[in-house]
Protein backbone atom coordinates (compact mmCIF):
# COMPACT_ATOMS: atom_id res chain seq x y z
CA UNK A 1 0.00 0.00 0.00
CA UNK A 2 1.27 3.42 -0.91
CA UNK A 3 2.00 6.14 1.67
CA UNK A 4 -1.06 8.13 0.62
CA UNK A 5 -3.70 5.87 -0.82
CA UNK A 6 -6.86 7.11 -2.49
CA UNK A 7 -9.33 4.35 -3.29
CA UNK A 8 -12.49 4.55 -5.40
CA UNK A 9 -13.05 8.15 -4.40
CA UNK A 10 -16.37 9.63 -5.57
CA UNK A 11 -17.93 13.02 -5.02
CA UNK A 12 -21.32 14.25 -6.14
CA UNK A 13 -22.79 17.70 -5.57
CA UNK A 14 -26.49 17.00 -5.80
CA UNK A 15 -27.00 15.15 -9.06
CA UNK A 16 -23.67 16.27 -10.50
CA UNK A 17 -20.91 13.68 -10.18
CA UNK A 18 -17.75 15.72 -9.97
CA UNK A 19 -15.23 13.00 -9.11
CA UNK A 20 -15.67 9.47 -10.44
CA UNK A 21 -13.85 6.38 -9.16
CA UNK A 22 -10.59 8.18 -8.50
CA UNK A 23 -7.71 5.87 -7.52
CA UNK A 24 -4.18 6.91 -6.73
CA UNK A 25 -1.27 5.78 -4.65
CA UNK A 26 1.38 8.36 -3.77
CA UNK A 27 4.70 7.11 -2.45
CA UNK A 28 6.47 8.75 0.46
CA UNK A 29 8.43 11.79 -0.70
CA UNK A 30 6.83 11.75 -4.14
CA UNK A 31 5.71 14.88 -5.98
CA UNK A 32 2.48 14.22 -7.86
CA UNK A 33 0.62 16.79 -9.97
CA UNK A 34 -3.06 16.84 -10.84
CA UNK A 35 -3.30 18.32 -14.30
CA UNK A 36 -6.54 19.09 -16.08
CA UNK A 37 -8.74 21.85 -17.43
CA UNK A 38 -10.68 24.10 -15.08
CA UNK A 39 -13.72 22.36 -13.59
CA UNK A 40 -12.46 18.79 -13.99
CA UNK A 41 -12.50 18.11 -10.25
CA UNK A 42 -8.86 18.63 -9.24
CA UNK A 43 -9.64 20.95 -6.37
CA UNK A 44 -12.46 18.71 -5.20
CA UNK A 45 -10.14 15.69 -4.89
CA UNK A 46 -7.57 17.81 -3.08
CA UNK A 47 -10.18 19.20 -0.70
CA UNK A 48 -11.34 15.68 0.11
CA UNK A 49 -7.76 14.72 0.95
CA UNK A 50 -7.46 17.85 3.11
CA UNK A 51 -10.76 17.11 4.85
CA UNK A 52 -12.74 20.13 3.60
CA UNK A 53 -15.17 18.02 1.61
CA UNK A 54 -16.69 14.69 2.55
CA UNK A 55 -16.42 12.01 -0.14
CA UNK A 56 -19.68 10.50 -1.35
CA UNK A 57 -17.87 7.17 -1.23
CA UNK A 58 -14.36 5.78 -1.26
CA UNK A 59 -11.47 5.95 1.17
CA UNK A 60 -8.35 8.02 1.82
CA UNK A 61 -5.54 6.42 3.82
CA UNK A 62 -2.20 7.75 5.03
CA UNK A 63 0.34 5.15 6.12
CA UNK A 64 -2.41 2.56 6.15
CA UNK A 65 -4.62 4.59 8.48
CA UNK A 66 -8.05 5.48 7.10
CA UNK A 67 -8.51 9.23 7.55
CA UNK A 68 -11.67 9.60 5.47
CA UNK A 69 -13.81 10.53 8.47
CA UNK A 70 -11.23 12.63 10.28
CA UNK A 71 -11.90 16.39 10.55
CA UNK A 72 -9.48 18.65 8.66
CA UNK A 73 -7.82 20.02 11.80
CA UNK A 74 -6.76 16.53 12.93
CA UNK A 75 -5.25 15.28 9.68
CA UNK A 76 -1.78 16.78 9.86
CA UNK A 77 -1.90 17.83 6.21
CA UNK A 78 -0.43 21.14 5.05
CA UNK A 79 -2.29 23.19 2.49
CA UNK A 80 -1.30 26.09 0.24
CA UNK A 81 -4.05 28.05 -1.49
CA UNK A 82 -4.15 29.96 -4.74
CA UNK A 83 -5.09 33.18 -2.91
CA UNK A 84 -2.36 32.67 -0.24
CA UNK A 85 -4.89 32.94 2.61
CA UNK A 86 -2.34 34.40 5.02
CA UNK A 87 -3.85 35.72 8.23
CA UNK A 88 -3.87 39.49 7.60
CA UNK A 89 -3.71 40.43 11.28
CA UNK A 90 -0.60 38.36 11.99
CA UNK A 91 3.01 39.06 11.06
CA UNK A 92 4.98 36.71 8.82
CA UNK A 93 6.53 35.08 11.89
CA UNK A 94 3.17 34.70 13.60
CA UNK A 95 1.67 33.25 10.44
CA UNK A 96 4.41 30.66 10.14
CA UNK A 97 4.25 29.88 13.85
CA UNK A 98 0.46 29.51 13.86
CA UNK A 99 0.38 25.74 13.40
CA UNK A 100 3.13 25.23 15.99
CA UNK A 101 1.23 27.32 18.50
CA UNK A 102 -1.91 25.28 17.87
CA UNK A 103 0.12 22.12 18.41
CA UNK A 104 1.23 23.45 21.79
CA UNK A 105 4.87 23.78 20.80
CA UNK A 106 6.99 25.75 23.29
CA UNK A 107 8.09 29.36 22.67
CA UNK A 108 11.76 28.60 22.06
CA UNK A 109 11.06 25.62 19.81
CA UNK A 110 8.55 27.68 17.82
CA UNK A 111 10.97 30.55 17.40
CA UNK A 112 13.75 28.33 16.13
CA UNK A 113 11.43 26.44 13.76
CA UNK A 114 10.04 29.72 12.39
CA UNK A 115 13.59 30.97 11.84
CA UNK A 116 14.44 27.75 10.05
CA UNK A 117 11.39 28.11 7.79
CA UNK A 118 12.23 31.75 7.00
CA UNK A 119 15.70 30.61 5.95
CA UNK A 120 14.21 27.84 3.86
CA UNK A 121 12.03 30.24 1.86
CA UNK A 122 14.83 32.78 1.63
CA UNK A 123 13.10 35.61 3.52
CA UNK A 124 14.98 35.67 6.84
CA UNK A 125 14.71 39.45 7.21
CA UNK A 126 10.97 39.78 6.63
CA UNK A 127 9.68 38.03 9.76
CA UNK A 128 8.21 41.18 11.26
CA UNK A 129 6.24 42.30 8.23
CA UNK A 130 2.51 41.97 7.74
CA UNK A 131 1.21 40.07 4.70
CA UNK A 132 0.00 43.26 2.99
CA UNK A 133 3.59 44.51 3.01
CA UNK A 134 4.76 41.60 0.86
CA UNK A 135 4.63 40.92 -2.86
CA UNK A 136 2.49 38.08 -4.16
CA UNK A 137 5.46 35.77 -4.59
CA UNK A 138 6.70 36.49 -1.07
CA UNK A 139 3.23 35.92 0.35
CA UNK A 140 3.00 32.55 -1.34
CA UNK A 141 6.40 31.56 -0.01
CA UNK A 142 5.28 32.50 3.49
CA UNK A 143 2.13 30.44 2.95
CA UNK A 144 4.34 27.51 1.99
CA UNK A 145 6.47 27.97 5.10
CA UNK A 146 3.35 28.22 7.23
CA UNK A 147 2.03 24.95 5.82
CA UNK A 148 5.38 23.18 6.30
CA UNK A 149 6.25 24.47 9.77
CA UNK A 150 4.21 21.91 11.77
CA UNK A 151 5.86 19.07 9.79
CA UNK A 152 2.77 17.74 8.02
CA UNK A 153 2.71 14.23 6.56
CA UNK A 154 1.41 15.46 3.24
CA UNK A 155 1.57 18.84 1.52
CA UNK A 156 -1.25 19.94 -0.80
CA UNK A 157 -0.95 22.90 -3.15
CA UNK A 158 -3.97 24.14 -5.11
CA UNK A 159 -2.80 26.18 -8.10
CA UNK A 160 -0.37 28.10 -5.88
CA UNK A 161 1.26 29.93 -8.76
CA UNK A 162 -1.79 30.94 -10.78
CA UNK A 163 -2.12 34.38 -9.21
CA UNK A 164 1.51 35.32 -9.88
CA UNK A 165 3.12 36.81 -12.95
CA UNK A 166 5.12 34.69 -15.37
CA UNK A 167 8.66 35.36 -14.13
CA UNK A 168 7.89 34.76 -10.46
CA UNK A 169 5.89 31.72 -11.43
CA UNK A 170 8.87 30.03 -12.98
CA UNK A 171 11.33 30.87 -10.23
CA UNK A 172 8.87 29.87 -7.52
CA UNK A 173 8.18 26.64 -9.37
CA UNK A 174 11.83 25.70 -9.05
CA UNK A 175 11.95 26.84 -5.46
CA UNK A 176 8.93 24.78 -4.43
CA UNK A 177 10.47 21.72 -6.03
CA UNK A 178 13.80 22.33 -4.29
CA UNK A 179 12.16 22.73 -0.87
CA UNK A 180 10.02 19.65 -1.48
CA UNK A 181 13.11 17.61 -2.32
CA UNK A 182 15.06 18.99 0.67
CA UNK A 183 12.31 18.03 3.10
CA UNK A 184 11.33 14.87 1.26
CA UNK A 185 7.68 15.71 1.83
CA UNK A 186 4.92 13.83 0.03
CA UNK A 187 3.23 16.43 -2.16
CA UNK A 188 0.20 16.85 -4.38
CA UNK A 189 0.28 19.88 -6.65
CA UNK A 190 -2.83 20.96 -8.55
CA UNK A 191 -2.44 22.94 -11.75
CA UNK A 192 -4.06 23.53 -15.12
CA UNK A 193 -0.69 24.50 -16.56
CA UNK A 194 0.90 21.53 -18.34
CA UNK A 195 4.36 23.06 -18.33
CA UNK A 196 4.19 23.37 -14.56
CA UNK A 197 3.02 19.78 -14.16
CA UNK A 198 5.57 18.33 -16.57
CA UNK A 199 8.53 20.26 -15.25
CA UNK A 200 7.96 19.76 -11.53
CA UNK A 201 6.47 16.34 -10.99
CA UNK A 202 7.65 12.82 -10.38
CA UNK A 203 4.30 11.72 -11.69
CA UNK A 204 1.37 13.47 -13.31
CA UNK A 205 -2.31 12.60 -13.00
CA UNK A 206 -4.17 13.94 -16.01
CA UNK A 207 -7.79 14.54 -15.03
CA UNK A 208 -10.77 14.91 -17.30
CA UNK A 209 -14.40 15.25 -16.21
CA UNK A 210 -13.77 13.84 -12.76
CA UNK A 211 -11.77 10.86 -13.99
CA UNK A 212 -8.05 10.22 -13.76
CA UNK A 213 -7.40 9.63 -17.46
CA UNK A 214 -3.77 8.69 -17.14
CA UNK A 215 -1.19 8.47 -14.38
CA UNK A 216 2.47 8.41 -15.30
CA UNK A 217 5.81 10.16 -15.35
CA UNK A 218 5.91 13.41 -17.33
CA UNK A 219 7.90 11.55 -20.00
CA UNK A 220 5.25 8.83 -20.32
CA UNK A 221 2.37 11.24 -20.26
CA UNK A 222 3.90 13.34 -22.99
CA UNK A 223 5.24 10.64 -25.24
CA UNK A 224 2.78 7.80 -24.70
CA UNK A 225 -0.61 9.35 -23.99
CA UNK A 226 -3.21 6.62 -23.65
CA UNK A 227 -6.32 8.66 -24.37
CA UNK A 228 -7.17 11.24 -26.96
CA UNK A 229 -7.86 13.75 -24.21
CA UNK A 230 -4.42 13.36 -22.65
CA UNK A 231 -2.75 13.55 -26.04
CA UNK A 232 -4.55 16.77 -26.88
CA UNK A 233 -4.42 18.43 -23.48
CA UNK A 234 -0.72 17.85 -22.82
CA UNK A 235 1.54 19.54 -25.31
CA UNK A 236 0.44 20.52 -28.80
CA UNK A 237 -0.49 17.82 -31.20
CA UNK A 238 -1.12 17.27 -34.89
CA UNK A 239 -4.16 15.19 -35.64
CA UNK A 240 -4.73 13.60 -39.04
CA UNK A 241 -7.91 11.70 -39.94
CA UNK A 242 -7.28 8.25 -41.35
CA UNK A 243 -9.13 5.02 -42.19
CA UNK A 244 -7.88 1.61 -41.14
CA UNK A 245 -7.31 -0.62 -44.20
CA UNK A 246 -5.71 -3.61 -42.56
CA UNK A 247 -5.51 -3.54 -38.78
CA UNK A 248 -3.26 -6.56 -38.38
CA UNK A 249 -0.67 -5.30 -40.84
CA UNK A 250 -0.98 -1.70 -39.63
CA UNK A 251 -2.03 -0.26 -42.99
CA UNK A 252 -4.13 2.91 -43.03
CA UNK A 253 -5.30 5.38 -45.63
CA UNK A 254 -4.66 9.11 -45.17
CA UNK A 255 -7.15 10.54 -47.64
CA UNK A 256 -6.16 8.40 -50.61
CA UNK A 257 -2.49 8.07 -49.60
CA UNK A 258 -1.69 4.60 -48.22
CA UNK A 259 0.51 4.64 -45.09
CA UNK A 260 2.04 1.67 -43.37
CA UNK A 261 2.63 1.92 -39.60
CA UNK A 262 4.51 -1.40 -39.43
CA UNK A 263 2.64 -2.54 -36.30
CA UNK A 264 -0.73 -4.10 -35.58
CA UNK A 265 -3.52 -1.67 -34.66
CA UNK A 266 -6.30 -2.17 -32.15
CA UNK A 267 -9.06 -0.86 -34.42
CA UNK A 268 -11.00 -2.91 -36.94
CA UNK A 269 -10.49 -2.57 -40.66
CA UNK A 270 -12.57 0.22 -42.18
CA UNK A 271 -12.72 2.11 -38.86
CA UNK A 272 -11.90 5.81 -38.67
CA UNK A 273 -8.95 6.70 -36.46
CA UNK A 274 -6.73 9.68 -35.79
CA UNK A 275 -3.00 9.72 -36.29
CA UNK A 276 -1.27 12.06 -33.90
CA UNK A 277 2.23 13.52 -33.95
CA UNK A 278 3.95 16.08 -31.74
CA UNK A 279 5.38 19.02 -33.72
CA UNK A 280 8.94 18.22 -32.68
CA UNK A 281 8.95 14.71 -34.19
CA UNK A 282 7.85 15.91 -37.63
CA UNK A 283 10.78 16.85 -39.85
CA UNK A 284 10.90 18.74 -43.07
CA UNK A 285 12.19 16.73 -46.02
CA UNK A 286 12.39 13.03 -46.80
CA UNK A 287 13.92 10.79 -44.15
CA UNK A 288 14.72 7.24 -45.03
CA UNK A 289 14.35 4.15 -42.89
CA UNK A 290 11.23 3.56 -40.81
CA UNK A 291 9.60 6.87 -41.60
CA UNK A 292 6.23 7.80 -42.97
CA UNK A 293 6.74 10.39 -45.68
CA UNK A 294 3.89 12.71 -46.64
CA UNK A 295 3.71 15.26 -49.44
CA UNK A 296 2.21 18.68 -48.86
CA UNK A 297 2.49 22.43 -49.22
CA UNK A 298 3.73 25.08 -46.78
CA UNK A 299 0.57 26.69 -45.37
CA UNK A 300 1.94 28.89 -42.66
CA UNK A 301 5.28 30.05 -41.25
CA UNK A 302 5.76 31.58 -37.79
CA UNK A 303 9.21 32.83 -37.06
CA UNK A 304 9.50 32.73 -33.25
CA UNK A 305 13.23 33.44 -32.98
CA UNK A 306 15.12 30.33 -31.97
CA UNK A 307 12.27 28.16 -33.20
CA UNK A 308 10.37 28.33 -36.47
CA UNK A 309 6.89 26.83 -36.38
CA UNK A 310 5.77 25.71 -39.82
CA UNK A 311 2.37 24.39 -40.86
CA UNK A 312 2.17 22.04 -43.78
CA UNK A 313 -1.11 21.10 -45.50
CA UNK A 314 -1.11 17.33 -46.18
CA UNK A 315 -3.81 14.78 -46.92
CA UNK A 316 -6.01 14.45 -43.83
CA UNK A 317 -5.24 17.82 -42.27
CA UNK A 318 -2.61 20.36 -41.24
CA UNK A 319 0.72 19.32 -39.73
CA UNK A 320 2.57 21.67 -37.40
CA UNK A 321 6.28 21.18 -37.10
CA UNK A 322 9.09 22.98 -35.33
CA UNK A 323 12.55 23.55 -36.74
CA UNK A 324 15.41 25.41 -35.18
CA UNK A 325 16.47 28.68 -36.71
CA UNK A 326 19.63 28.49 -38.80
CA UNK A 327 21.21 31.77 -39.87
CA UNK A 328 22.18 30.48 -43.31
CA UNK A 329 18.80 28.97 -44.11
CA UNK A 330 15.77 31.35 -44.35
CA UNK A 331 12.33 29.86 -43.62
CA UNK A 332 10.47 28.32 -46.60
CA UNK A 333 8.01 30.39 -48.59
CA UNK A 334 4.25 29.89 -48.45
CA UNK A 335 2.91 27.43 -51.02
CA UNK A 336 6.21 25.66 -51.58
CA UNK A 337 5.65 21.92 -52.20
CA UNK A 338 7.50 19.94 -49.51
CA UNK A 339 7.79 16.49 -48.04
CA UNK A 340 7.56 15.81 -44.32
CA UNK A 341 8.66 12.72 -42.43
CA UNK A 342 7.49 11.14 -39.18
CA UNK A 343 8.90 8.02 -37.61
CA UNK A 344 6.42 5.13 -37.47
CA UNK A 345 7.18 4.56 -33.86
CA UNK A 346 6.37 8.08 -32.78
CA UNK A 347 3.12 8.32 -34.67
CA UNK A 348 0.33 7.84 -32.10
CA UNK A 349 -2.90 6.12 -33.02
CA UNK A 350 -5.99 7.47 -31.26
CA UNK A 351 -9.66 6.64 -31.52
CA UNK A 352 -11.37 9.21 -33.75
Amino acid at each position, binding site marked *: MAFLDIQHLEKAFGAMRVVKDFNLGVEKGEFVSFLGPSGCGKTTVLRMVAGFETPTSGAICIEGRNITGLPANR*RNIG*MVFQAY*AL*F*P*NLTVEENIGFGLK*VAGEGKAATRSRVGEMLELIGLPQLGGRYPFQLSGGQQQRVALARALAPRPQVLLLDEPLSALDAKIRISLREEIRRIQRDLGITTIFVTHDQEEALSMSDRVVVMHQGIADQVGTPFEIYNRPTTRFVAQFVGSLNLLDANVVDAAAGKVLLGDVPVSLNRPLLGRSGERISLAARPEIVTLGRSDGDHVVLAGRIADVHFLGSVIRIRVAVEGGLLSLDTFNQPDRPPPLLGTPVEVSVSHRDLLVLAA
Partner: protein
Amino acid sequence: MTGKRFWSWLAVTFGGLYFLLPLVGMFDFSMRMQRGAYSFEAYRVVLADPRFQQTFGYSVVLALLTIVLGILIVVPTAYFVRLRFPGLRPIIEFITLLPLVIPPIVIVFGYIRIYNTSSILPLTGSWWGTNILLLFGYVVLSLPYMYRSVDTGLRTIDIASLTEAAQSLGAGWARILTVVILPNVFVSVLSGAFLTFAIVIGEYVFAALLNVNSFGPYMVWMGGNRAYEPSALAVIAFAITWACMGLIQLFTRFSIFSIVRR
Protein backbone atom coordinates in the same frame (compact mmCIF):
# COMPACT_ATOMS: atom_id res chain seq x y z
CA MET B 1 -18.64 81.67 -7.74
CA THR B 2 -20.84 79.85 -10.21
CA GLY B 3 -24.57 79.51 -9.64
CA LYS B 4 -24.30 75.79 -9.09
CA ARG B 5 -21.79 76.18 -6.32
CA PHE B 6 -23.87 78.85 -4.70
CA TRP B 7 -26.89 76.57 -4.43
CA SER B 8 -24.78 73.73 -3.10
CA TRP B 9 -23.35 75.95 -0.40
CA LEU B 10 -26.79 77.23 0.46
CA ALA B 11 -28.12 73.69 0.89
CA VAL B 12 -25.20 72.67 3.06
CA THR B 13 -25.45 75.82 5.18
CA PHE B 14 -29.18 75.37 5.66
CA GLY B 15 -28.71 71.74 6.68
CA GLY B 16 -25.92 72.66 9.06
CA LEU B 17 -27.95 75.40 10.71
CA TYR B 18 -30.92 73.08 11.03
CA PHE B 19 -28.87 70.71 13.13
CA LEU B 20 -26.62 73.16 14.93
CA LEU B 21 -28.96 75.97 15.98
CA PRO B 22 -30.94 73.95 18.54
CA LEU B 23 -27.70 72.60 19.94
CA VAL B 24 -26.20 76.04 20.21
CA GLY B 25 -29.39 77.30 21.80
CA MET B 26 -29.42 74.48 24.29
CA PHE B 27 -25.76 74.92 25.11
CA ASP B 28 -26.27 78.65 25.55
CA PHE B 29 -29.22 78.04 27.85
CA SER B 30 -27.30 75.49 29.92
CA MET B 31 -24.65 78.14 30.63
CA ARG B 32 -27.08 80.65 32.14
CA MET B 33 -27.84 79.03 35.48
CA GLN B 34 -26.10 81.81 37.35
CA ARG B 35 -27.86 85.07 36.86
CA GLY B 36 -25.94 87.61 34.80
CA ALA B 37 -22.92 85.39 34.10
CA TYR B 38 -21.90 82.62 31.75
CA SER B 39 -20.86 79.59 33.75
CA PHE B 40 -20.70 75.81 33.92
CA GLU B 41 -22.73 75.86 37.12
CA ALA B 42 -25.45 73.60 35.68
CA TYR B 43 -22.80 71.08 34.67
CA ARG B 44 -21.25 71.21 38.08
CA VAL B 45 -24.59 70.57 39.74
CA VAL B 46 -25.37 67.69 37.40
CA LEU B 47 -22.00 66.04 37.71
CA ALA B 48 -22.07 66.36 41.49
CA ASP B 49 -25.51 64.81 41.76
CA PRO B 50 -25.08 61.31 43.24
CA ARG B 51 -28.06 60.10 41.25
CA PHE B 52 -26.31 61.17 38.07
CA GLN B 53 -23.23 59.24 39.04
CA GLN B 54 -25.22 56.19 40.02
CA THR B 55 -27.51 56.03 36.98
CA PHE B 56 -24.75 56.90 34.56
CA GLY B 57 -22.43 54.29 36.02
CA TYR B 58 -25.19 51.73 35.84
CA SER B 59 -25.89 52.49 32.19
CA VAL B 60 -22.21 52.34 31.26
CA VAL B 61 -21.86 48.89 32.84
CA LEU B 62 -25.05 47.74 31.15
CA ALA B 63 -23.84 49.08 27.80
CA LEU B 64 -20.53 47.23 28.11
CA LEU B 65 -22.31 43.99 29.01
CA THR B 66 -24.65 44.51 26.06
CA ILE B 67 -21.66 44.89 23.77
CA VAL B 68 -19.93 41.77 25.08
CA LEU B 69 -23.08 39.66 24.84
CA GLY B 70 -23.85 41.12 21.42
CA ILE B 71 -20.39 40.21 20.11
CA LEU B 72 -20.68 36.69 21.54
CA ILE B 73 -23.99 36.21 19.76
CA VAL B 74 -23.50 38.16 16.55
CA VAL B 75 -19.93 37.29 15.49
CA PRO B 76 -20.32 33.49 15.47
CA THR B 77 -23.79 33.77 13.94
CA ALA B 78 -22.75 36.09 11.12
CA TYR B 79 -19.63 33.98 10.55
CA PHE B 80 -21.36 30.63 10.30
CA VAL B 81 -24.18 32.05 8.21
CA ARG B 82 -21.64 33.36 5.72
CA LEU B 83 -19.53 30.22 5.82
CA ARG B 84 -22.10 27.45 5.91
CA PHE B 85 -25.58 28.84 5.19
CA PRO B 86 -25.16 31.74 2.77
CA GLY B 87 -28.73 31.11 1.61
CA LEU B 88 -30.01 32.08 5.05
CA ARG B 89 -28.31 35.46 5.02
CA PRO B 90 -31.29 37.51 3.79
CA ILE B 91 -33.54 35.87 6.40
CA ILE B 92 -31.10 36.49 9.24
CA GLU B 93 -30.61 40.04 8.08
CA PHE B 94 -34.37 40.58 8.04
CA ILE B 95 -34.68 39.22 11.57
CA THR B 96 -31.91 41.47 12.85
CA LEU B 97 -33.62 44.46 11.28
CA LEU B 98 -36.91 43.78 13.07
CA PRO B 99 -36.02 45.88 16.15
CA LEU B 100 -35.95 48.91 13.85
CA VAL B 101 -39.46 48.13 12.64
CA ILE B 102 -41.11 47.00 15.87
CA PRO B 103 -41.28 49.88 18.38
CA PRO B 104 -39.40 49.22 21.63
CA ILE B 105 -42.60 49.75 23.56
CA VAL B 106 -44.13 46.76 21.81
CA ILE B 107 -41.10 44.63 22.54
CA VAL B 108 -41.02 45.56 26.19
CA PHE B 109 -44.74 44.94 26.61
CA GLY B 110 -44.14 41.54 25.07
CA TYR B 111 -41.40 40.91 27.60
CA ILE B 112 -43.57 41.99 30.49
CA ARG B 113 -46.39 39.70 29.34
CA ILE B 114 -44.11 36.70 28.94
CA TYR B 115 -41.87 37.15 31.96
CA ASN B 116 -44.25 38.69 34.51
CA THR B 117 -44.42 37.47 38.10
CA SER B 118 -47.21 34.98 37.39
CA SER B 119 -45.44 33.38 34.41
CA ILE B 120 -43.26 30.26 34.31
CA LEU B 121 -40.14 32.43 34.09
CA PRO B 122 -40.87 35.37 36.43
CA LEU B 123 -37.88 37.48 35.51
CA THR B 124 -39.55 40.79 36.36
CA GLY B 125 -40.02 39.63 39.94
CA SER B 126 -36.40 39.96 41.00
CA TRP B 127 -33.63 42.52 40.70
CA TRP B 128 -31.39 40.09 38.85
CA GLY B 129 -34.15 38.95 36.55
CA THR B 130 -35.10 42.50 35.63
CA ASN B 131 -31.51 43.41 34.86
CA ILE B 132 -31.03 40.33 32.73
CA LEU B 133 -34.23 41.08 30.87
CA LEU B 134 -33.06 44.62 30.25
CA LEU B 135 -29.68 43.37 29.07
CA PHE B 136 -31.25 40.90 26.66
CA GLY B 137 -33.63 43.60 25.45
CA TYR B 138 -30.72 45.93 24.73
CA VAL B 139 -28.89 43.19 22.85
CA VAL B 140 -31.99 42.89 20.68
CA LEU B 141 -32.10 46.66 20.15
CA SER B 142 -28.45 46.66 19.13
CA LEU B 143 -28.81 43.74 16.70
CA PRO B 144 -29.43 45.80 13.55
CA TYR B 145 -26.23 47.79 14.09
CA MET B 146 -24.09 44.96 15.39
CA TYR B 147 -25.08 42.45 12.75
CA ARG B 148 -24.74 44.83 9.84
CA SER B 149 -21.33 46.08 10.83
CA VAL B 150 -19.95 42.63 11.61
CA ASP B 151 -21.38 41.21 8.40
CA THR B 152 -19.84 44.05 6.41
CA GLY B 153 -16.52 43.35 8.10
CA LEU B 154 -16.73 39.67 7.22
CA ARG B 155 -17.34 40.53 3.60
CA THR B 156 -13.97 42.24 3.33
CA ILE B 157 -11.98 39.11 4.24
CA ASP B 158 -11.99 35.72 2.56
CA ILE B 159 -13.39 33.87 5.55
CA ALA B 160 -13.66 30.54 3.73
CA SER B 161 -9.96 30.40 2.82
CA LEU B 162 -8.80 31.78 6.16
CA THR B 163 -10.93 29.22 7.97
CA GLU B 164 -9.59 26.37 5.88
CA ALA B 165 -6.02 27.57 6.27
CA ALA B 166 -6.47 27.64 10.03
CA GLN B 167 -8.15 24.24 10.05
CA SER B 168 -5.39 22.64 8.04
CA LEU B 169 -2.96 24.01 10.65
CA GLY B 170 -4.90 22.19 13.32
CA ALA B 171 -7.08 24.98 14.72
CA GLY B 172 -10.56 24.30 16.12
CA TRP B 173 -13.60 26.59 15.97
CA ALA B 174 -12.91 28.51 19.18
CA ARG B 175 -9.41 29.41 18.03
CA ILE B 176 -10.52 30.25 14.51
CA LEU B 177 -13.17 32.63 15.82
CA THR B 178 -10.99 34.34 18.42
CA VAL B 179 -7.58 34.39 16.73
CA VAL B 180 -8.44 34.54 13.03
CA ILE B 181 -11.92 35.96 12.51
CA LEU B 182 -12.48 38.40 15.39
CA PRO B 183 -9.23 40.40 14.99
CA ASN B 184 -9.91 40.82 11.31
CA VAL B 185 -13.41 42.21 11.84
CA PHE B 186 -12.33 44.13 14.93
CA VAL B 187 -12.91 47.56 13.43
CA SER B 188 -16.38 46.59 12.31
CA VAL B 189 -17.14 45.10 15.70
CA LEU B 190 -15.95 48.34 17.32
CA SER B 191 -18.16 50.52 15.19
CA GLY B 192 -21.11 48.30 16.07
CA ALA B 193 -20.04 48.48 19.69
CA PHE B 194 -19.90 52.27 19.84
CA LEU B 195 -23.32 52.56 18.25
CA THR B 196 -24.63 50.10 20.82
CA PHE B 197 -23.02 52.13 23.57
CA ALA B 198 -24.68 55.30 22.36
CA ILE B 199 -28.06 53.61 22.15
CA VAL B 200 -27.95 51.96 25.55
CA ILE B 201 -26.73 55.06 27.38
CA GLY B 202 -29.76 57.11 26.42
CA GLU B 203 -32.43 54.40 26.22
CA TYR B 204 -35.63 55.30 28.07
CA VAL B 205 -38.59 53.08 27.14
CA PHE B 206 -37.22 49.70 28.22
CA ALA B 207 -35.73 51.05 31.41
CA ALA B 208 -38.80 53.03 32.43
CA LEU B 209 -41.26 50.22 31.80
CA LEU B 210 -39.10 47.69 33.61
CA ASN B 211 -38.74 50.27 36.37
CA VAL B 212 -34.96 50.42 36.30
CA ASN B 213 -33.07 53.53 37.39
CA SER B 214 -30.77 53.99 34.48
CA PHE B 215 -29.49 57.13 32.80
CA GLY B 216 -32.43 57.47 30.39
CA PRO B 217 -35.15 57.73 33.04
CA TYR B 218 -32.88 59.99 35.08
CA MET B 219 -32.62 62.43 32.17
CA VAL B 220 -36.39 62.42 31.75
CA TRP B 221 -36.93 62.95 35.44
CA MET B 222 -34.50 65.88 35.33
CA GLY B 223 -36.31 67.31 32.37
CA GLY B 224 -39.56 67.32 34.27
CA ASN B 225 -38.20 68.82 37.47
CA ARG B 226 -35.38 71.25 36.74
CA ALA B 227 -34.74 74.16 34.44
CA TYR B 228 -31.06 74.41 33.46
CA GLU B 229 -29.69 70.98 34.36
CA PRO B 230 -31.62 69.09 31.66
CA SER B 231 -29.94 71.17 28.98
CA ALA B 232 -26.57 70.44 30.51
CA LEU B 233 -27.43 66.74 30.60
CA ALA B 234 -28.53 66.79 26.99
CA VAL B 235 -25.27 68.42 25.97
CA ILE B 236 -23.35 65.79 27.93
CA ALA B 237 -25.34 63.00 26.27
CA PHE B 238 -24.65 64.52 22.88
CA ALA B 239 -20.98 64.76 23.67
CA ILE B 240 -20.90 61.07 24.61
CA THR B 241 -22.65 60.04 21.41
CA TRP B 242 -20.35 62.16 19.32
CA ALA B 243 -17.32 60.82 21.10
CA CYS B 244 -18.49 57.34 20.15
CA MET B 245 -18.86 58.35 16.51
CA GLY B 246 -15.45 60.00 16.60
CA LEU B 247 -13.89 56.86 18.04
CA ILE B 248 -15.44 54.78 15.26
CA GLN B 249 -13.82 57.07 12.72
CA LEU B 250 -10.52 57.02 14.57
CA PHE B 251 -10.32 53.25 14.79
CA THR B 252 -11.40 52.77 11.22
CA ARG B 253 -8.73 55.11 10.02
CA PHE B 254 -5.77 54.17 12.13
CA SER B 255 -6.18 50.49 12.71
CA ILE B 256 -3.52 48.25 11.18
CA PHE B 257 -6.24 45.90 10.03
CA SER B 258 -7.97 48.52 7.98
CA ILE B 259 -4.69 49.15 6.20
CA VAL B 260 -4.52 45.45 5.58
CA ARG B 261 -7.69 45.57 3.58
CA ARG B 262 -6.53 48.24 1.18
